[in-house]
């Protein structure tokens, strides 16, 4: 069963499509990285799934049920834009309100549990307005985690976090999918971070889904390349181009694409009098893949 299934979903604001006949499938148990530039329609899609916005047309199903089904919606946790807490109330009071809202049987225990997950056991009595940005994001996650949600919708949850905060957030997300069987839909513009946890990706542009794939598919599609440095970069490039088809100078390195055999490159350069000072095998990451995909998309549009 899919956790989210969206068919032909559209939403416009003043005649402009923010989400344009979007199709999307999020498998149950996945960490689905929702990728797209600013204004591409990620947040709008998430708000539509959460029922904050009314769609112009299309269908949203959550776990095979209509998204307006009260039974399924009560199992959705969301962090959209901000935690949505009352600034004058304490962390505990904010969580208690959500626990009451969900009719949880043991609210105190539940609050303790989620605070432990987000590593904020000692901050229960801190006023929300006194919390740092990282803490606020984690409180937002804790709110979303109350009542063992089946689906978590997180819009830019790692925004503004420091390196340690990002690591903690990563560990939390992996932990909840593994231990609680939760499906996570997460958007972020920090693709490097997303790449570390996502099992599936969806790439959206101008409200349209341009590609959906699993992390394995992404891995198999990603180009391999060997990057190296020599004293005479220009001479080495000319030599390499006599044998290899895709040789580029990028970021102070020579990159030889679609070649996995570093030895043959070194041998070829040595034969032609170029000594390699630095060499490593690489694979294109999500960020580079995304940039290439976008530029290919731009060319198609032209």
């Amino acid at each position, binding site marked *: *069963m899919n956790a989210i299934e969206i068919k032909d979903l559209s939403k416009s604001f003043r005649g402009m499509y923010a989400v344009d006949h979007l199709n999307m499938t999020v*498998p*149950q*148990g996945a960490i689905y990285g929702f990728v797209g530039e600013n204004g591409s329609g990620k947040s709008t899609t998430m*708000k539509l799934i*959460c*029922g*904050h*916005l*009314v769609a112009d047309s299309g269908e949203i199903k959550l*776990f095979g*049920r209509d*998204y*307006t*089904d*009260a*039974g*399924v*919606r*009560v*199992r*959705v*946790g*969301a962090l*959209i*834009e*901000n*935690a*949505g*807490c*009352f*600034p*004058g*109330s304490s962390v505990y*009071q904010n969580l*208690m*309100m*959500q626990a*009451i*809202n*969900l*009719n949880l049987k043991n609210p105190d225990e539940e609050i303790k549990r989620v605070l432990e997950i987000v590593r904020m056991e000692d901050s229960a009595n801190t006023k929300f307005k006194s919390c740092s940005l990282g803490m606020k994001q984690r409180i937002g996650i804790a*709110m979303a985690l109350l009542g063992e949600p*089946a689906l978590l*919708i997180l819009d830019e949850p790692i925004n503004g976090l420091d390196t340690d905060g990002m690591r903690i957030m990563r560990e939390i997300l992996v932990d909840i999918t593994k231990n609680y*069987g939760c499906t996570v839909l997460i958007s972020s513009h920090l693709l490097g971070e997303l790449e570390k946890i996502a099992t599936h990706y969806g790439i959206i542009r101008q409200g349209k889904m341009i590609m959906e794939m699993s992390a394995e598919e992404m891995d198999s599609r990603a180009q391999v390349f060997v990057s190296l440095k020599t004293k005479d970069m220009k001479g080495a490039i000319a030599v390499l181009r006599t044998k290899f088809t895709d040789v580029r100078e990028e970021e102070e390195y020579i990159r030889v694409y679609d070649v996995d055999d570093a030895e043959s490159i070194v041998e070829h350069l040595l034969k032609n009098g170029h000594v390699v000072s630095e060499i490593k095998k690489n694979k294109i990451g999500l960020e580079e893949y995304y940039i290439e995909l976008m530029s290919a998309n731009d060319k198609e549009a032209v």
Partner: protein
Amino acid sequence: MAKELHFESPSFGERIKGMLGVDFYRLFHTPLFYIFLAIAAVIPAMILGTSGMENPQTGEVAEKLYTNVWHIIAAEKPLYVVSSIAEYANMNMVFIFGGIMVSIFIGHDYKSGYVKQLFTTHAKKQDYMISKSLTSAFAMACMCITYLLGSVAAGLLTGLSMEVNAGSLIIAILSKTIMSLGWASLYTFLNIIFRRYFGISIVSSFFFGTGILIIGVAAILGNSSLLNVFLYGSSVYACLSANVVTLIVCIICSVAWAVIYNLAGTHILNKSDVY
């Protein structure tokens, strides 16, 4: 392997219990409610205490607004056409402060973003309307009680007459308290319409709470009982000559408007973007 998931749809009662629970928790855990309870108690006390006071600069003594304590609770007769402040200023003022309180209460749902949590987990928008209307009605009913206490305390201190038909007084107080439900539903509805504009919500609540529209209509129609179909009309009808009919009229008017505003508010929430 994906975990087997079961989804049980909560009943209407369970949903409302959750939503009401949040609203009452918020009401009792924030200073707003207590501040407005105090305001409701202080206002009649101030009016009674300051009326008839001597101006220290001119030495003139102002005419007493009231000769009887209970006139600050309700007028002697249903006076839709108002000719003096004394005919206007009574327990109906609670509905003006109440409107401001409801606007702040609901406005903070939107300002803080907490409303996102509510609408994510509550697919049925009627839950929100019903819960806000009932919580706000409770808050306004409590304000009616503190208004009564403030009036009685000030009346005792100023030594005004307390002569009254006890039955009519009780019915008038009860009827006005019951009107809280209709007023609370109106304010919830207004705050749904102007949910993105906090200031306009407060101003509109204040405007409707003053009953200025009905007072204007009454200036043309005169003291017509037809005005009892409106919230302000019924609130005025609950006066010191009230009887069982007054109580029934107030119950019908309050409940009918509560249903109308709840249906209209739910319709708006279903058809428009909520955040």
